[in-house]
């Protein structure tokens, strides 16, 4: 065996050793400089820890009672926003998702639908909420519109990708029977994407509820507004109660939706 004792090492990601080391050392230097520019002041960190402890103490004694009316009102408002936004968002996202699927939509429709999805996905919910609060004033209307808008981008994109991934043979067979375009969608495509569409809808319901708490802070109504007020008044015990309620509801919807999704498979 002439080949005995030969050495072997895995080839490196970057072949040029100079470049490899330059990148590694450069990255370390940049990280060090970045850390220094943050001006970490340990005295302030200590103070912050103190304040954090006050939070923790307050959270250990959540107060559901003194502001119970506001909390219930906020939760109901958030749930209403969530349901309305999810239902309308999905209803609008279905035609947009169909139009954004390259394999069934003509090019002009495809481009328009992709553009709508891109716009909706570019802006984070909070930014959209600020805009709609300016347009419609404070309150749940702005929040519902924000969430519906975000739902369109999310569902439209995922639905379109799912349609592009279908088994083309099944759709071809339906086309071969002389079916029209809506019949093709109903028979050849819908059965293939339905379980995922339902799963995604439930998932989006979760997300919308969580987001409704966040966008309330910028004035879009719901439990987020209640939470913001509680913080403004330094009522940490009430804030704790609100957060615990949000966590409980999020967990409940998540558990419920995962149960449903499993049954739909």
């Amino acid at each position: 065996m002439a080949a005995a004792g030969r050495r072997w090492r895995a080839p490196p990601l970057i072949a040029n050793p100079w470049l490899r080391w330059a990148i590694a050392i450069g990255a370390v230097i940049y990280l060090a400089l970045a850390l220094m520019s943050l001006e970490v002041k340990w005295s302030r960190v200590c103070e912050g820890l103190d304040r954090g402890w006050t939070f923790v103490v307050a959270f250990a004694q959540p107060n559901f009672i003194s502001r119970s009316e506001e909390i219930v009102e906020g939760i109901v408002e958030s749930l209403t926003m969530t349901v309305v936004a999810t239902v309308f968002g999905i209803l609008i996202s279905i035609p947009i998702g169909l139009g954004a699927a390259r394999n069934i939509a003509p090019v002009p429709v495809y481009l328009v639908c992709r553009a709508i999805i891109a716009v909706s996905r570019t802006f984070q919910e909070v930014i959209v909420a600020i805009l709609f609060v300016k347009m419609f004033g404070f309150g749940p209307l702005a929040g519902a519109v924000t969430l519906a808008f975000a739902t369109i981008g999310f569902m439209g994109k995922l639905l379109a990708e799912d349609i592009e991934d279908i088994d083309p043979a099944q759709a071809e067979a339906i086309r071969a029977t002389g079916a029209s375009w809506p019949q093709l969608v109903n028979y050849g495509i819908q059965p293939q994407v339905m379980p995922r569409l339902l799963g995604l809808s439930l998932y989006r319901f979760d997300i919308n509820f969580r987001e409704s708490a966040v966008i309330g802070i910028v004035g879009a109504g719901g439990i987020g507004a209640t939470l913001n007020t509680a913080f403004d008044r330094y009522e940490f015990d009430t804030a704790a109660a609100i957060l615990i309620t949000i966590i409980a509801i999020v967990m409940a919807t998540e558990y419920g939706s995962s149960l449903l999704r499993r049954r739909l498979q």
Partner: protein
Amino acid sequence: MLLIEGLTKQYKTGDRALRGVDLTVPQGQVAALIGPSGAGKSTLLRCVNRLVEPTAGKIALDGVEITGLGRRALRRARRQMGMIFQEYALVERLTVMENVLSGRLGYVGFWRSFFRRFPAPAIDEAFRLLDRVGLAEFVDKRADALSGGQRQRVGIARALIQDPAILLIDEPTASLDPKTSRQIMRLIRELCAERRLPAIINLHDVGLAISFAERIIGLRQGVIVFDGPPERLTPAVLTEIYGEEDWSALIRAASEDGEAEGAGETAAAAGQRQTGFQGSDARARLT
């Protein structure tokens, strides 16, 4: 009767799948299309119902020119052409009945099909066909719960409920075991004989083509290089279609088998006359 003249297909990639194919399939004839992978068999079949748009040439079914039809007219023409697919191409998450009834989509409006409210005659026919292919007790099963042979029977029923003037059949036995393949081929041939339907069947399996078809068309690189009855399919012809190989054993086995099949068919036909399809039904249920 199907008439094809000078059919040419060039894909956008530049591949010339068909180069001037001329072909006539008369009423009631079962023709097998054989040839190596990439010879253009699938393209030829899909040009007939324009799932693939031909580049040049003329196709006419019973006097109606398919090439050059507008969208609506093309859909009308498609419902007269039953297609049976490789790997069945059933909609997996729909029930057997929904899959069969999807063959009627060209005949009903959107809302009727959306609410699955098909006209009563269509539903009667669906039950009759499912009975005929031996799947009467699977009506409300989902298609993905069936075995390969059963799925292809659903595919056959879906094509037949269209009340087609021709069957286009693409590799019907591609993923079936040998025994099921023969049962499916036999079923197709019996159904074509009952309804005097012409059929073009793409086949990889030369043995099956010799046993079950009355006419064989050999395609190589988009050109027809052989067209004749199975008896004229000599080793020299197969070499021309597929390339050098020892073909004699295959031909001998297949033609003996074909004679047996022919005898079987006469017997089955006699049986049918007496018992009204029971003989073939019993056989169909074997899978």
